[in-house]
């Protein structure tokens, strides 16, 4: 019993660190992207009264990465928007990473029921990526 308590504590520390790290990375990335976007010379006035759906880069991860990191041929506005979106993606990945670590943790404890339960949760999250 004491062995289980010990590994649970370790698992909890790992989960805590993952969550804190994820939020930190997301915030810093978001701030960098946001500042680039706002200080771009061609920043336009905005209004969100009408819903147009974001013409986002989320559907095109390759393009988003290229706009964020490629040195040439990208305007500051585009780069800012791409990096901001990367920040948001980093935030959304945090709980998914947390769930993945939990699978490893429960597997190390040889807790089959919870490995199965956690796999169901992860599969649901992955399934949501495929839905429209």
């Amino acid at each position: 019993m004491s062995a289980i308590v010990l590994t649970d504590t370790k698992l909890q520390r790992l989960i805590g660190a993952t969550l804190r790290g994820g939020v930190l990375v997301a915030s810093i990335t978001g701030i960098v992207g946001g500042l680039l976007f706002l200080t771009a010379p061609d920043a336009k006035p905005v209004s969100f009264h009408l819903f147009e759906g974001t013409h986002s880069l989320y559907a095109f991860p390759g393009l988003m990465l290229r706009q964020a990191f490629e040195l040439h041929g990208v305007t500051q506005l585009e780069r800012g928007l791409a990096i901001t979106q990367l920040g948001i993606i980093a935030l959304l990945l945090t709980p998914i990473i947390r769930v993945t670590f939990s699978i490893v943790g429960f597997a190390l404890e040889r807790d089959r029921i919870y490995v199965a339960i956690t796999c169901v949760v992860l599969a649901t999250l992955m399934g949501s990526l495929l839905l429209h």
Partner: protein
Amino acid sequence: MTAYEFTLIVFLVSISAGLLGALTGLGGGIVVTPALTLLLGVDIRYAIGASLVSVIATSSGAAAAYVKDGLSNIRIGMFLEMATTAGAICGAILASRTPTNALAILFGAVLLHSAWQVIQAKKQQNRNQAADPLCETLQLNGVFHSSEGTVDYRVSRAKSGFGLMYVAGVLSGMLGIGSGALKVIAMDRIMGIPFKVSTATSSLMIGVTGVASAAIYLKRGYIHPLIALPVMLGVLGGSMLGARLLPRMPVMTLRRIFAVVVVVIAVQMITQGLRGRL
């Protein structure tokens, strides 16, 4: 409005929402959506998308501290997350088929319920629980360390709790909120889990529940980076400030005042929804 002004205003509004959310225990997400729609005239779908992002951020931030203290029960959380994630996906799909004014009215109703929840004095629960074999199999019973020493707790009625968690997930997916209030009701009132453990486990669960609907929101274009980013940073900052201030505040008085504020916001959401303005 220039992008700069807009971002600044959204950021300031979100800080207040995060502060209010932390001091009432409602969470920042539930206040930020009405603030964006009623004050700034943002389309409710963008507001819901931004709110969901902020909810995931604050939940992860808060959960990190709770998990470290060993207050959240990761098994209870994971077991119930099967229900909340499935519910959240259904909710997110429902949201896009629901007219925005109906979303506003539903939002108002949830706010009214939360306000009522906030002013309710916490009653001492009867902890004489029947043993639940399912909870034994799932090893949901646990211990937590409080100032009065180590407390053992038993969990019961896992199935009913699971069912209510599905509903909490649907609401979360439809409205971009954490539905922490409903999650705590399911754990504290139904499953007999101590209040502290319920709140801590709830905030651990909110992040995973939120992500289940976020992918669908992203594809539908609900999450605009220009709104989501200042909302996320603002609510995060506001709730961290709120958590610091909380121990030095007359909490019950504050809660009563805020409950009135929340009721006013709820009535606004409902009337605007009925008039078809949102």
